């Protein structure tokens, strides 16, 4: 069993007067891909944003690599080695693909070997290198968002619904890219609505409902237990497979 790179302990988050997370607990083992599943409004995005410090936890602890990062400013959290790909991708539309990547490379120059590897994962990035990111298609923007997150080695990737709104062919492309990423040993926490993608990629799973984690375990177990899927996610998985 791998040790936990990230552990959430009783995390509560309020946004204005709304109490969104009600004591979220789960762990993300080092070097594995953990899926965070749940219905719309279950609190998945809020969980990622709370880890990233974009919304402050009102209670509880977020332990990353042995230190509590709850309440720290977002740039400090990013500098610890956490990369975040938000649901809206967070692409800088007015900047070129190259400029987006330059900004993501905090350490300075982009390592040419790593860039070559990224171009291997996402050939579109090489092709559109000098174009404004705003002119890319939705799938290409998602590729850029992920490329940006991995332009330098990071300890943990937080990725929010990377397959949302993408065509099936591009989803397969994404799944292949995540498999490749997994093989490098990076730890990933992936929010996903697409159960097929979750099944293919996840080592572990945490399922959220109404701001709480209602199930945690191995992804393979959930993938095989249709009754549990129905109970936790409230939909027929056959339709998603």
């Amino acid at each position, binding site marked *: 069993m791998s040790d936990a790179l990230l552990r959430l302990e009783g995390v509560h988050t309020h946004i204005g007067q709304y109490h969104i997370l009600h004591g979220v607990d789960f762990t993300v083992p080092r070097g594995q891909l953990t899926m965070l599943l749940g219905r719309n409004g279950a609190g998945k995005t809020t969980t990622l944003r709370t880890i*990233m410090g*974009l919304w402050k936890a009102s209670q509880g602890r977020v332990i990353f690599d042995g230190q509590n990062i709850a309440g720290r*400013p*977002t*740039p400090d959290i*990013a*500098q610890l080695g956490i990369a*975040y790909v*938000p649901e*809206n991708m*967070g692409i*800088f*539309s*007015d*900047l070129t693909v190259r*400029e987006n990547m*330059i*900004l*993501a490379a*905090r350490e300075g120059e982009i390592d040419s070997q790593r860039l070559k*590897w990224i171009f*291997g*994962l*996402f*050939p*579109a990035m090489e*092709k*559109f290198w000098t*174009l*404004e990111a*705003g*002119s*890319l*298609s939705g*799938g290409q923007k998602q590729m850029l968002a992920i490329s*940006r997150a991995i332009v330098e080695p990071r300890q943990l990737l937080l990725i929010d619904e990377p397959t949302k709104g993408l*065509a099936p*062919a*591009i989803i*397969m*492309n994404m799944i*292949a*890219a995540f498999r*490749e990423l997994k093989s490098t040993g990076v730890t990933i926490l992936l929010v996903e609505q697409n159960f097929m993608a979750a099944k293919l990629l996840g080592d572990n799973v945490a399922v959220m409902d109404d701001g709480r984690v209602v199930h945690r375990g191995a992804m393979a177990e959930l993938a095989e237990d249709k009754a549990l899927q129905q109970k936790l996610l409230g939909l027929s998985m056959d339709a998603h497979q």
Partner: protein
Amino acid sequence: MTVAAAATENLTLPKVKTDWLPAMLVPILAVAALPLVGSFSTWVTLTVAALAMGMMIFLMASGLTLVFGLMDVLNFGHGVFISFGAYLSLVALGPLAGWVESDNVWLNILVLLACAGVAMLITGILGWAFERIVIRPVYGQHLKQILITMGGMIVAEQMIHVIWGASPIPIRLPEGLRGAFLFGDAAVERYRVIAALVGIAVFAVMHLMLNRTKIGLLIRAGVENAEMVESLGYRIRRLFVGVFIVGSALAGLGGVLWAFYRQTLTAGMGMEVNILIFIVIIIGGLGSIGGCFVGSILVALVANYTGFLAPKLALGSSILLMVLILLWRPQGLYPVAKR
């Protein structure tokens, strides 16, 4: 290593269109005004004067548009840096009075540079203090920003009265910068040419900085999505303070040029151009330096041409221009993509 290329087989190169139309409005407007003005020499004089005026407005407005774009801060007190910049000319003019009267143009230009240097340094420091004391407590609260920055401006104006007195102060343009260049029948004031050149130089430097340096990229990225810049590990607050200081210093520089243009100092001179500056940054697209540049020239051209052709309309010409442009492009000439 290569991932299944299903999604990339169908790659078509998207075309990036450079939007020249707003920039083309400047020559179109100028050419369209020529037959209306009638006399070529008068048209040249009006046009060059408008370019100089536009560049001064650009200097005064460029910092404000970045401040608004980057941190969503409505700084109605921006005009105070213009007034302070103008008055701070006096600090340099005092010891350099001999150079002002000299007919050596290079000494005259040194006087201008000294005034600009002092004004930019001190307005930059004032900008830093203004951000810490006035702006910082009201991030994200537009109504409070308007009220407190207006209040800050009133306080600063009174400070000018305390330091330099309430009466208007005349200042002399250095000897060699007075007069005009004559091109046939057209007279182009020397000082206006200098003001136009300074504005163009500052725009060029800003353009290079915003497009060729990492700090510039961060500013542009921050204007579009500040939260994502923070998520990449950069402290947007520090960047904003830097932009605020530079914006204040540029307003101070604009104030110096504006002061020598008017040749009279009044504490309210910054507040007088505040409305004009807001019109310019709205026309240009909030947060857009290119839009601010084009908007400044358009406002000045329209003001000059209507002032000559229909003086009664001159007062409202900028607002009319803003209405027309917003009807055409509701986000301004060069809207900045927002999250």
